[in-house]
């Protein structure tokens, strides 16, 4: 091979160490690392501020009294008493109930289907994935146009805003599917179900008592996502002329732009979601530890 010159050298192999030279204050790579960390902390600070400030401003606004600079919790107490129509409290109630119903329906619909597919109809999983991701491509604003005639029919039976759950389950599908799929993947459903069935369990038992308990974390996750979605959903409710929390807040803001209750209710919603998140992660840890 031309082009490579054999080098010269001397020989020495020394097994015993020589006295260590004085410690050098870090080399090039340490310097590089320091520069990187500087960038990181600056980035985190700037972005942190960007994300925190509006939240803080919202809270601050909600605590503002009649005169600028004074404090008052009026905005917060108003949440319970703000008149409508309809009264804020009732739309909060409706929204919470809606969250519960949507979650339940979603779980009952999706979880058994996913387990069934995993165990008995693998080929369908691609179809299910596609359907569940469709709502990402068909935005709510478009969906509601097509839902309007369907809801016309529903309203002949029941005019309550709770009927929104039909649509909300669909809206939640992409997020909950992903969370549940991740959870189901972590469970070796096939092996577990075969073991259970060989011991005599029926399909229902297998699903409920074998697989679902191993998916708790993912289920809680999906629940949180659904609740967050329902709490924050506006488009479909508004355009189908139902009144939920968000719609109510919107109407209030049209009439009284700086109404304190807007900010206190928003802050409360966010706080609520955050607390749910904490409970979820706490429960998740405990469940993990609890399992032998």
């Amino acid at each position, binding site marked *: *091979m031309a*082009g*490579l010159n*054999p*080098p*010269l*050298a*001397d*020989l*020495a*192999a*020394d*097994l015993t*160490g*020589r006295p*260590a*030279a*004085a*410690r*050098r204050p*870090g*080399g*090039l*790579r*340490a310097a590089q690392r320091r520069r990187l960390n500087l960038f990181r902390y600056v980035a985190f600070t700037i972005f942190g501020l960007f994300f925190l400030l509006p939240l803080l401003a919202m809270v601050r606004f909600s605590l503002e009294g009649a005169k600028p600079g004074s404090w008052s919790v009026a905005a917060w107490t108003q949440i319970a008493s703000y008149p409508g129509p309809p009264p804020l409290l009732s739309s909060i109630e409706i929204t919470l109930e809606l969250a519960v119903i949507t979650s339940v329906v979603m779980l009952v619909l999706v979880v058994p289907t996913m387990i069934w597919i995993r165990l008995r109809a693998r080929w369908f999983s691609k179809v299910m994935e596609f359907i569940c991701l469709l709502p990402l491509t068909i935005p709510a604003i478009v969906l509601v146009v097509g839902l309007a005639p369907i809801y016309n029919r529903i309203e002949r039976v029941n005019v309550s805003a709770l009927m929104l759950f039909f649509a909300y389950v669909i809206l939640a599908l992409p997020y909950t599917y992903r969370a549940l799929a991740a959870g189901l993947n972590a469970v070796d459903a096939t092996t577990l179900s075969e073991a259970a069935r060989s011991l005599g369990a029926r399909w229902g038992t297998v699903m409920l008592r074998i697989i679902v308990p191993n998916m708790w974390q993912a289920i809680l996750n999906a629940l949180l996502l659904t609740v967050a979605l329902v709490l924050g959903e506006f488009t479909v409710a508004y355009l189908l002329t139902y009144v939920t929390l968000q719609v109510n807040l919107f109407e209030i803001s049209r009439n009284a732009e700086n109404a304190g209750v807007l900010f206190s209710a928003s802050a409360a919603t966010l706080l609520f979601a955050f607390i749910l998140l904490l409970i979820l992660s706490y429960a998740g840890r405990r469940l993990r530890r609890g399992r032998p």
Partner: protein
Amino acid sequence: MEGLSRHYGSVVALDNLDLTVQPGELIALLGPSGCGKTTTLRLLAGLEDADTGHINVAGRDITRLPASKRDMGMVFQAYSLFPHMTVQENVAFGLRLRKISSAQRDRRALEMLELVELGSQAGRYPSQISGGQQQRVALARALAIEPQVLLLDEPLSALDAKVRAQLRDQIRRIQLEVGITTLFVTHDQEEALAIADRVGVMRAGRLEQLAPPTEVYSRPATSFVAEFVGLSNRLAGTVTGSAVTVRGHDLPLVDPLTPAGPVTAIVRPEAVTLASDNSGESGPMTGTVIASTFLGATSRVTVDLGDTTIMAQLPTSEATKLPAGSRVTLTIRPDPVLVSADSAVASEE
């Protein structure tokens, strides 16, 4: 290039290590995980900083030089090829950085690929070739820039056993052909013994022995080396004069200056021979066969001597004549053995 001498101290990874490599030589750094061999390599490459000490290449102190300016080619354990470039583009990458003209680049890249016998795969992507082929491409890429030193960080560890053996020999062949100074890190002692000019056995950041493979194997400098490289039997013995007496055999010592007294001797299985014993008497060198492990051409036979077990390595044809339960007599060939001062005797494994 003047070879390199390096000495520094870094409490965690490397403890005041000195190592000098001859030009054109292939040194294998061998040792268990965490012994510091990879750290040594990465320090040389400039991918990590040394706390103390210097690195010299060809007489030049490169300790403060950034990795991109050191003239070394490195082959990583895995994932080293750029997935979005073809094999040829990968090999030519270093040349591209050096602003070599496109025509010359292509020519050299193809040259290198021919060297590793992958010229036909030049247009493929890394995801389309096998693990062994990927490592050959990585080798070609490292050599393409004509470095002063070639560094290989456990390049065969992620490959199948069969591929490993083939590639190992190929690497050695290419290294000799090109004549490049090479540092090869591995935890597989067979690899190290097979291809190196000298083997450096490392433990806990220190170099325990640096010597040609045969010496490391038959004249280990420390008991760690003896046990890490090849299998060994640990037998109680007594040193008198310049030999050690082990179970009735007098064996010469690796280090004739060992002080007298009780020691543990390290005896290689292939130094132990077995013969069928029908005499019915027991002695220090009679025992019962416990098990026999078939290794292909040879077999390893474990014998229970009553107070300890010993391993012998025999051609399989002989081993099959000594099934489990048979009584045997052992003889130990008088190869020089290493002894360690502690007289605790534990059976091997």
